[in-house]
């Protein structure tokens, strides 16, 4: 399952999730503000602290709302 690292107050996180919904893609949300552990997981997978971050089943990591890259990985 695709994982989306995000928070409720992040505009591009909301946009990313809305986009995945529009493509009928299922994903798990990991709220980085919920726990230090989630924050550490974000840093572990992406090497940075910015959100949103999408982690695909293939292990590919997309930082930010990078629609062309997301489209490419979804296809």
């Amino acid at each position, binding site marked *: 399952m695709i994982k989306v690292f995000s928070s409720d107050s992040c*505009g591009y996180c909301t*946009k990313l999730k809305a*986009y995945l919904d*529009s493509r009928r893609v299922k994903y798990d949300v990991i709220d980085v503000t919920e726990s230090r552990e989630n924050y550490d997981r974000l840093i572990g997978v992406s090497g940075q*602290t*910015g959100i949103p971050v999408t982690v695909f089943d293939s292990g590919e990591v997309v930082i930010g709302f990078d629609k062309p890259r997301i489209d490419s990985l979804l296809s």
Partner: protein
Amino acid sequence: MQLPRLTRLLNNLRILQNPPNFRGIFAYSIHMEKEIIKTKLVIVGAGPAGITASIYAARAGLDPVVLEKGLVGGQVALSSIVENYPGYMSITGTELSEHLRAHAQALGVQIDEFDVIERAELSDSKKRIITESKIFEPTAVIIATGAVPKPLLVRNESRFRGKGVHYCALCDAPAYKGKTVGVVGGGSAAIEEALYLSNIAEKVVMIRRKSSFHAEKAILRRAENTPNIEILYNTDLTDVGGSGDFMEYAVVADTLTLKERKIPLSAVFAYIGSVPRTELLRGSLELDPSGYIAADEDMKTSVEGVFAAGDVRTKRYRQIVTAVSDGAVAALNAEKYILQSDQNTAG
């Protein structure tokens, strides 16, 4: 799938055979014809200017389409708190953006947030906005794509954006009442903002990479004579940091010795210029030397039927209220243009 729909779909498909490449393998690609949409008004950008234009246009019965590749609300959506928009003593940028969206959508405005514009062909006689999936052929266009502040390009900038890294003192300064803040930049705007901040913050530290400012001398003198403004010449901001969610210090380097040090700052305000989002318009519309759209107070651009509103337009003050005002004027003039155009076509 129903047969007529399938037939239409097949008619819309062109199968292109690429030349043979490796070892006789043929590659095929499918190119879908884009849907052509003839409409009265396309608004590019869903910040305060674009949304206001859409509200006025919808109420005028123009059925506007709004295209936005970033966030609805534009730069407002990235602001932690808005305290200078009439009617709201204090509101988060997220909330205000959602109010803007809800207002437009309640009037039936279509906001497309995912289709990205590939190019715009704008002339007096014909307007075409080509996106990834559609071709819009509107009678009139309002460009409200906004401007984005030039980034500081320091490592932790995005982490602390809105939580210590800011681009608008007028908007965000009140959060730093009684605190020490920094201002980065070398022009009059940076100094004006430092003076503004000096009335709110306990202390303002100006971080200037060079040994002088390229600002008006009178205003520089005022800054130099303001007791709670400290000017650090030959000093470059290299990073910002903090142990929690909010910024607590800046890392600066002496540009002569390259020696770095930390200075405690609750925020830095960046005034190193802004970048208008006009990359798609070069060659289509007259731009000023900084890339902003040259448009008059009626929001008319160099192309008939194309209007510019908000931060993307050449103007002195870039505020939410001035963007909203621009949006209203642009929509009203677009309405006039469309009516005239319809009459000309009918006549």
